């Protein structure tokens, strides 16, 4: 026989259950565990990314010198940048830097993945070795290349002039407008291609072996197998890695800053370095942040495409 108190408790728990059910209808089946699980991430994103980012957007609409309170100027900074020749050149350079670099990384990454999935001895050791550039600190690698490219004492000129005798005289790799951009791009490629390689390698492992067997039965050669099985199988990962790398490369600051600081004569001036110059050389924080955010819409488009492909990847 239920006591009134027990009955009350039962009805309370019943109504809590109904409430829970209707909350679940609104908020989703697993809302409790879901919110609990996502909460730390939400806090992190809000406190360490969203808030500073929001503040940065605000600052980009002000005239702001270091140590002085900001003065609201609306979109002035953006408007002024649009007409600024140095800014435009930095935008153009950024595109050359990004796409030049990503394109070669893509090709080298495929080569690396193909090699590492071939029948070779010590495969896992070589995989580890080829990952070195990607795991070494960028500061270290950039300084090392500054030393390698050095006109008079660098090993690159030594190799080309004295050992291989390909050139009559050394090249100022970082000082000629013709070679400076290529030289900084080369370092970015060197550092970044292993990520492409290892991602593609992983992607290839996920391609069912039956597809290759079927293609072999149809009499397809190595090249045909590559184009009819491997490449289509990698399609999604190819797009994702390319887009990710595009964002990373576009925001890459250290390599160019350490190697050329944007020189010679602005030939390698890319947006992150330009931002840095305005922020710390000129102390105009508002304008500097406007430079950094100017390309946001373009990058946002990349992100949207990326998100779409990643979701498609999840559905399969």
């Amino acid at each position, binding site marked *: 026989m239920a006591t009134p108190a027990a009955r009350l408790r039962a009805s309370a728990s019943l109504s809590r259950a109904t409430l829970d059910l209707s909350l679940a209808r609104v908020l989703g089946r697993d809302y409790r565990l879901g919110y609990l699980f996502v909460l730390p991430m939400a806090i992190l994103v809000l406190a360490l990314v969203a808030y500073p980012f929001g503040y940065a957007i605000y600052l980009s609409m002000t*005239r702001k*010198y*270091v*140590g*002085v309170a900001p003065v609201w100027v609306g979109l002035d900074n953006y408007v002024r940048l649009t007409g600024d*020749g*140095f800014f435009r050149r930095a935008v153009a350079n950024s595109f050359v830097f990004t796409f030049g670099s990503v394109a070669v990384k893509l090709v080298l990454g495929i080569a690396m993945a193909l090699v590492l999935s071939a029948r070779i001895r010590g495969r896992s050791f070589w995989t580890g070795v080829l990952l070195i550039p990607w795991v070494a600190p960028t500061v270290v690698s950039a300084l090392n290349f500054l030393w390698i490219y*050095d*006109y*008079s*004492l660098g090993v690159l000129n030594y190799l080309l002039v004295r050992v291989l005798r390909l050139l009559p*005289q*050394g*090249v*100022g*790799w*970082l*000082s*000629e*407008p013709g070679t*400076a951009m290529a030289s900084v791009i080369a370092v970015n490629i060197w550092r970044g291609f292993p990520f492409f390689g290892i991602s593609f390698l992983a992607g290839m492992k996920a391609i069912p072996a039956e597809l290759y067997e079927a293609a072999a039965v149809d009499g397809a050669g190595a090249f045909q197998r590559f184009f009819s099985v491997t490449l289509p199988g990698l399609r999604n990962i190819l797009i994702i890695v390319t887009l990710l790398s595009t964002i990373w490369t576009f925001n890459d600051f250290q390599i160019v800053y350490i190697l*050329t*600081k*944007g*020189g*010679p*004569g*602005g*030939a390698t001036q890319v947006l992150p370095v330009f931002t*840095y*110059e*305005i*922020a*710390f*050389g*000129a*102390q*105009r*924080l508002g304008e500097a942040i406007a430079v950094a955010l100017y390309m946001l819409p373009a990058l946002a488009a990349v992100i949207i495409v990326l998100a779409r492909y990643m979701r498609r990847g999840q559905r399969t």
Partner: protein
Amino acid sequence: MDRRLRDLADQLDAGLIARREFLRRAVVLTGGTAAGLAVLRRRASAQPKTKLRVWLFKSFVTAGNDVVARQIEAWAKERNVEVETDWATFGDREQKFVAAIEAGNPPDMAEMNLYGPMRYKAALRDATKIATDVASAKGGLLPFAERAMKLDGKFLAVARYSMTTVFFIRKDIMEAKGLKPPKVYDPDVVEFARKTQDPSKDLWGFGQTLNRSDDGDGFMSNILWDYGGGVWDKDGKPALGTTFLKQNAAALQFAVDTIQKHKIQPPGVMGWTDPSNNEAYMAGKLVTTNNGASLYYAMVSKKHELAANTLLVLTPGGPAGSFVGSSCYNWAIFQKTKHAELCEDLIRWVEDEKRFTEYLQVSVGQAGPVYKARVDNPYWKSDPNYDAIIQNILRCVNIGYPGPMTPAAAEVQGQKVLTDMAGRVVVGGLSAEAALKEAHARVEEIYKMRRT
């Protein structure tokens, strides 16, 4: 600790008994003063000490850094203050200052370069009193240093030393060819370089980058002045592509010609950063170059064989004379500090003549005078090469010349407008005049923004 002693100590803390009373009773309790004194001493050191945050310039003169570090340590001990020092070099300083000021967390005081006080003036404390005190004890500031430290009649910082550039010559090569040190760039340096260089052996007559760098920017300022031009006019208004267009065009053209027409510079020179000419010179690939004392220091301190074969002379000039931009390292105190007196005390301590001389002794010519009394220090007679350093310092002019040194002038330097301009000619293929006009627009803009 004995329980009774601890109770006693608690009474002392609560202010119930005086220290003397505490000691007396402690003697009674423990039969001696030692235990009681030990308690007192332990308490003194447990007291939270005042903490002073000091940012210092990490100079290439590492022996000098050690001297400063030791002196500050000694001061901290003497004053019973805890000092946290942070050292940063050329490249890393600005982002640390900017981030710290913006986050409201600047140090109490910092050692800054010539531009620092102008750049961060909004965050700095008026240093007029301490700067005047220190200067009057040392026979007054040299005129350039006074102008560099002062804005609108107020001192922003306390001058410390001047690190000037000089002209480096390979004495052995010069003497082998029977030549004399050049006095002007055109034609002296050009001819000197042509006669001494040997491109087939990768030996070049002159090594002076026009790339974005402090070295390149310093040279560009100097050469504009040498030809009677400059970025600013007498009133501090932009003159780069207007009033001084003709003079500046001649200067810029000459700078570019050293690379393209006279071919007295090594092929990689347009990509050089600040360390490049030091390395090329020490590798024996340059006959002459412009640099600060760092290069001489590096050779002397490492007993490099070229140290003895190096002659330092006055920076060459042009038709309008020979000009050198100033340098003035200094101490600045931040507004936010709660320990301004301690900061001032520390400045007096390290700028004390005995301590400064200790620093000077190891500086290999880096710590040039900014105070009149320091010009006559016998140290400057200890190496004939130091004479060029002293003479260059005594005749140097500030950025902004012939006008006053202003925040706008500091920003033009900070943005490397002049080397960008040279790059537009060498790399971008613009004419000297077109590049000057383009750069002038940038200067105008900076001038407009900095005035408001």
